[in-house]
């Protein structure tokens, strides 16, 4: 194989890049390959149409099965075109005849369903291998790459997409007034004539994708062989050798100076001229016999003085004088410590915000503590007289009752009893007791019941007063809640006891007490 004339750039590629190169080749050669495909496929397709008795579904499957038959000539054509011998249109029949050898048979029988078809086609067609050697070759080539399989699957789907696209395009683009394509029938009902349209469109899709498929497989094959056999290196080595041969042949006719120049230009740069001295025998012989060191140096200097090796030029231009960095710049500018000032301000802002947050926190805490204490009913049990326990102020008691307290409470009570207003009398007496209790420093909380007040009183008051208080509370409760009017005499006795406990004059108990008009009747 002459790699020198190869029409694609050889370089190590990833498998997928190989596939892409194939698509590029397929586009480049599309028209030729497409025509070639139809030249092979059309007679076969017509023949199969007759053989399948006009059934489009069978026909489509049969044509699909024969695809390797149409791909072989494409492969043959592409193989020649790649090596720079692009076949003329007149050679097509010859190419088809050359491609359809008996080696194709396995591809149409048991290897038809192999998924690496286009990748392995060159082994059969271009290398002409068959039997065990072909099997070994195929195994080596397909070792460890998955792209050929994917290529076949992808191209299968590309065909389906093109087929569906054309069918849908026919449906979308034909105006409603015209007879329209029945898509369902075209895809599913194999006995309907529209199914033929679908089948022919599929054949069209085969023909469009086939050149790309074959070329992609072919270039995958090339990529694989380039990887395994370093074709690109062979090509580069051959070119280098040919050039060297040409240079050696021309060496005797060239002047020595020219030869040296070539050596200088083409060799790697080096500080010492000696390093360039070619070591291969023919050149060394030429150089050793003709030139001595001094002459060579002169020649080198002359050659280097040539314009090609650079020249000196004098250029005059104006450059702005460097500005002194210390010099103040005109115009207002930001103060240099503006940033520092901003940082300072931000700092202050930060701390004040923090202080504000702290103050808020303290305030909230106080509020919470207050709220908790207010809502917690806590009675002084073991600490009599402690003020801080209840915060129901004595002031509250001042509001008890609408009317103000009379100066002489016992007299007022007695008057009320005489007027038969027992309830008012008791109320006044009870209120007076409570106020008195409050004045003695007992804090009565808001919402305290009569029993609570009695309990508080028991802790502070002297025993006789507590006894009176207990009786008063009991009587009051009976009046207030049970609406049981106590007899006037009982009230008078209570009042007398109340006064006695406070060392007040008890008043005329004799005539009014037991013989009151309000006695029980």
């Amino acid at each position: 194989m002459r790699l020198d004339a190869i029409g694609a750039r050889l370089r190590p590629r990833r498998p997928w890049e190989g596939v892409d190169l194939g698509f590029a080749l397929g586009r480049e050669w599309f028209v030729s390959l497409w025509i070639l495909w139809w030249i092979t496929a059309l007679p076969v397709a017509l023949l199969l149409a007759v053989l399948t008795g006009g059934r489009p579904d069978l026909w489509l499957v049969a044509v699909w099965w024969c695809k390797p038959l149409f791909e072989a000539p494409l492969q043959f054509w592409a193989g020649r075109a790649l090596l720079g011998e692009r076949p003329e249109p007149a050679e097509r029949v010859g190419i088809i005849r050359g491609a359809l050898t008996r080696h194709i048979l396995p591809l149409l029988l048991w290897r038809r369903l192999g998924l690496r078809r286009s990748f392995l086609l060159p082994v059969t067609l271009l290398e002409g291998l068959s039997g065990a050697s072909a099997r070994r070759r195929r195994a080596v080539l397909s070792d460890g790459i998955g792209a050929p399989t994917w290529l076949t699957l992808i191209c299968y789907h590309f065909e389906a997409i093109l087929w569906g696209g054309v069918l849908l395009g026919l449906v979308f683009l034909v105006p409603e007034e015209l007879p329209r394509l029945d898509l369902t029938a075209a895809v599913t009902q194999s006995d309907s004539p529209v199914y033929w349209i679908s089948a022919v469109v599929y054949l069209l899709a085969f023909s469009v994708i086939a050149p790309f498929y074959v070329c992609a497989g072919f270039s995958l094959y090339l990529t694989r062989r380039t990887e395994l056999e370093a074709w690109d290196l062979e090509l580069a080595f051959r070119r280098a050798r040919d050039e060297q041969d040409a240079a050696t042949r021309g060496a005797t006719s060239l002047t020595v100076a020219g030869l040296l120049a070539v050596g200088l230009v083409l060799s790697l740069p080096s500080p010492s001229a000696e390093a360039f001295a070619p070591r291969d025998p023919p050149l060394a012989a030429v150089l050793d016999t003709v030139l001595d060191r001094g002459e060579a140096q002169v020649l080198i200097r002359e050659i280097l003085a040539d314009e090609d090796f650079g020249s000196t030029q004098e250029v005059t231009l104006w450059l702005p004088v460097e500005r002194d960095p210390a010099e103040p710049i005109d115009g207002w500018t930001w103060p240099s410590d503006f940033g520092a000032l901003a940082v300072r301000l931000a700092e202050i802002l930060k701390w004040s915000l923090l202080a504000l947050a702290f103050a808020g926190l303290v305030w909230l805490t106080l509020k919470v503590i207050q709220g908790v204490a207010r809502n917690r009913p806590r009675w002084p049990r073991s600490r009599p007289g402690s003020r801080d326990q209840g915060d129901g102020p004595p002031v509250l008691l001042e509001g008890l009752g609408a009317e103000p307290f009379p100066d002489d409470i016992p007299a007022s009570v007695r008057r009320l009893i005489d007027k038969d207003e027992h309830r008012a009398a008791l109320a006044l007496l009870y209120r007076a007791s409570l106020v008195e209790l409050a004045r003695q420093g007992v804090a009565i909380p808001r919402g305290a019941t009569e029993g609570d007040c009695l309990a508080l009183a028991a802790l502070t008051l002297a025993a006789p007063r507590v006894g009176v208080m207990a009786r008063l509370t009991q009587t009051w409760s009976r009046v207030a809640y049970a609406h049981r009017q106590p007899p006037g005499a009982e009230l008078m006795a209570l009042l007398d006891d109340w006064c006695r406990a406070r060392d007040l004059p008890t008043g005329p108990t004799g005539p009014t007490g037991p013989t009151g008009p309000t006695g029980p009747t």
Partner: protein
Amino acid sequence: MPLPIDTVRLHETPEGVDLALRVAGPAPRAIAYLLDVVVRLALLLVVLPLAAFSGFGTGLILLALFGLEWLYPVVFEVRSGATPGKRIMGLMVVHDDGTPVRVASSLIRNLLRTVDFLPILYGVGLVSMLVDRDFRRLGDLAAGTLVVYADAPPAKPTISRVAPQPPPAGLPFEAQQAILAFAERGHAVSDARRIELAEILAGGVGRQGEAAVAQVNAWAAWLARGAPDGRG
């Protein structure tokens, strides 16, 4: 003789440097798309339990669907040049001058997927890629982008430690590169083939067989490391 066909697109910078962009064709891009579909389905499965919150959850799922359809490629392409699928296939999206893709171009090329998708499963995009010499679909043409192979960092050269010998004078640059490549890739080739290759070059100085291989390796060592006494 026409230029050899290749999938490399050269872009010349103002400094006169040729950037080689290896454009990727429809086949690897189809696989990358397939992988992305899988990734997106997986992401969708993650948000699907949101359907438990009936109305609100459905709304969130619809938003996720929208994002996965329209923003998924854009976000990944702008962030790292490639969606997960492309990354697995070793591909990336760049502008056609080789610069990283920006939000605007990425949005254009991904919004135009609606056109490329027509009439079914990227039919238009496939035809466009087959026709265009840089395998661009319509979205790429509009946005001025290319899908290229991401360059892997070059492997550390492994030139065997043999006594260096200067190669023949006047070797062109390509030949020097080939000699170095021979020393690095020679072990991947069968012995017979290695000798055959070496004899092409070393045959000219009368070396045959394994001696030719040794000769080429010695030249490679000289090219890689210079002369033993430091003169190279």
